[in-house]
């Protein structure tokens, strides 16, 4: 295995003064360019693990490392802005902004200049097949279109890692298949690391590596190909 781009060592996460333990000592290394699926029942800790990998939260114990260096809590904003792209089940688009503006939001955080932002957003939306829909507001888009805008947004700052939390959870089967096709194509084309949290076996089994989490621990791991 090549050197891991992301690694967690003995990671624990508890809430409510330790009364709820979401993760109970997880060790995991994710190689650069790898496609990993994480599955497990509700409350198993899979989304918590994704949040820690993405620097949305900090562990109660253990370390999260990016390219061998522990994530510094003070530098998490920069890490999220430049190294990772998030895709959420509920899309999380900003309702007051048009599709093309939503894609520019992460670029504002990264300090890209204005025209550059707009051109990049247009190109990403074109890649997602949304050239004709980029002036629409989220409430004027279908669920599948919204998720494609969210994928474009996740790619806005050319991240090294794509983290998707139930990306097809709010989609019908046709749109689910289309989104998964897009994500794997992006991962393949860009050589990105892709981590998907899902409870759908079909999606989990499409990934070359699949881990199952139960009760805050890695319960099972499968590799294919």
């Amino acid at each position: 295995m090549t050197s891991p781009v992301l690694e967690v060592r003995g990671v624990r996460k508890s809430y409510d003064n330790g009364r709820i333990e979401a993760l109970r000592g997880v060790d995991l290394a994710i190689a650069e360019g790898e496609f990993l699926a994480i599955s497990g029942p509700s409350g198993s800790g899979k989304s918590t693990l994704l949040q820690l990998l993405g620097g949305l939260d900090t562990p109660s114990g253990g370390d999260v490392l990016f390219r061998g260096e522990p994530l510094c809590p003070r530098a998490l904003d920069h890490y999220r802005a430049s190294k990772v792209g998030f895709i959420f089940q509920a899309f999380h688009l900003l309702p007051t902004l048009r599709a093309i503006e939503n894609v520019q939001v992460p670029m504002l955080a990264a300090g890209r200049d204005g025209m550059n932002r707009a051109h990049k957003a247009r190109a990403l939306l074109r890649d997602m097949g949304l050239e004709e829909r980029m002036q629409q507001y989220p409430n004027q888009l279908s669920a599948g279109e919204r998720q494609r805008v969210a994928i474009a947004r996740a790619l806005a700052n050319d991240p090294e890692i794509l983290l998707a939390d139930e990306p097809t959870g709010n989609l019908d089967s046709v749109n689910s298949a289309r989104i998964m096709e897009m994500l794997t194509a992006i991962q393949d084309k860009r050589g990105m690391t892709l981590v998907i949290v899902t409870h759908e076996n079909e999606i989990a089994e499409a990934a070359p590596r699949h881990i199952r989490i139960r009760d805050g621990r890695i319960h099972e791991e499968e590799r294919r190909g």
Partner: protein
Amino acid sequence: MTVQLSFARFAWKNLWRRRLRTALTLGGIAMAIGAFVGLVGFSRSFEHEWLRMYQSSGTDFAVVQQTFLNTSVDESDGAKLRAIREVAQATPMILNLMDLTPEVNALAYGWKADSYEFDSLKLLAGRRFEDGKPEVMLGELLAESLHKKPGDILEIQGSPFTVTGIYHGGSALEEGAAILPIDQMQVLGSLQGKVTAFHVRLKPAPMGEPQDRYISRVQGEIQAALPGLRAVPAAERASNNQLVLLAQAAAWGTSSIALLIGILGIANTMAMSVFERTREIGILRALGWRRWRILMLIETEAAVLGLVGGVVGIGVGWAALRVLAALPKTASIVSASIPALLLAESLAIAMLAGLLAGAVPAWRGAKLSPVEALRHD
């Protein structure tokens, strides 16, 4: 068309989404700034007119007792003043405020018929009054309000006074005033032998002596010659007399309350907005927006509210000043113009009010954890 998202556009869109709430908040801050512009503009205008009055008559000093408007300066002190070598002219005057009719208030001056202060007035009709006679001259504005012309009778405190002339004055204070013989004012006010002040014109400064040093030296000489009296330079007297100070205090006091209400309005709007947008703030944080950027976004929205409210408020204040300048009761002490400094102050105060009001909601928004904010319903 490629829509370019800027920070300012984003902030504006957030305000625009709740148009009614934004409009009501703008209305609140506009009223507050309108009150500030109207009231402070009124007091500044009042002060400015005082200064214009002294400047147009060429008065260098007003010699008064420690308390302005305390008409207890002895008229006989005039001889001592005139004996000072540097004094060119010293003329006694009485100042009072009169209710001429139920609708019209006016400043009333008591002057000697030979006062040098007449030099700055332009007689439009009639003639100057004579000392010792029940006669009165009216400023153009006051004559218009009272519908009086030379030869008409004006009743002052139950006594008939003949209007001898209509004049154009160097300031709104004179334009809207009545000037009576000082002896008649003394009779009307039971002030025989007393005057409000002496207005003093100095001879030119000797060659080689700077004007400010000359003024300061003569000031000392006057005060030494007349113990218990104060020689106040004209510019200082314009800004530092009781009427002006009272007007300023009332203006600042009232507009401070209005501003406080405006600030609370913006704070309420921003607090509600941050609460409603908790999840969106979580999204921004998840996308790598730093805390200070969230803080800046919310503060920008608050500052825009303040600034736009300020611009509207200046319009409201200007309209209020125009109304005041047209009303007979206030026309003599206010002009409709707004000084540039007051405009700049109003905009700065409006923006500062916005920033202040947005500070707590912005801080609360910025400290949200991305995970908790994303969970918010």
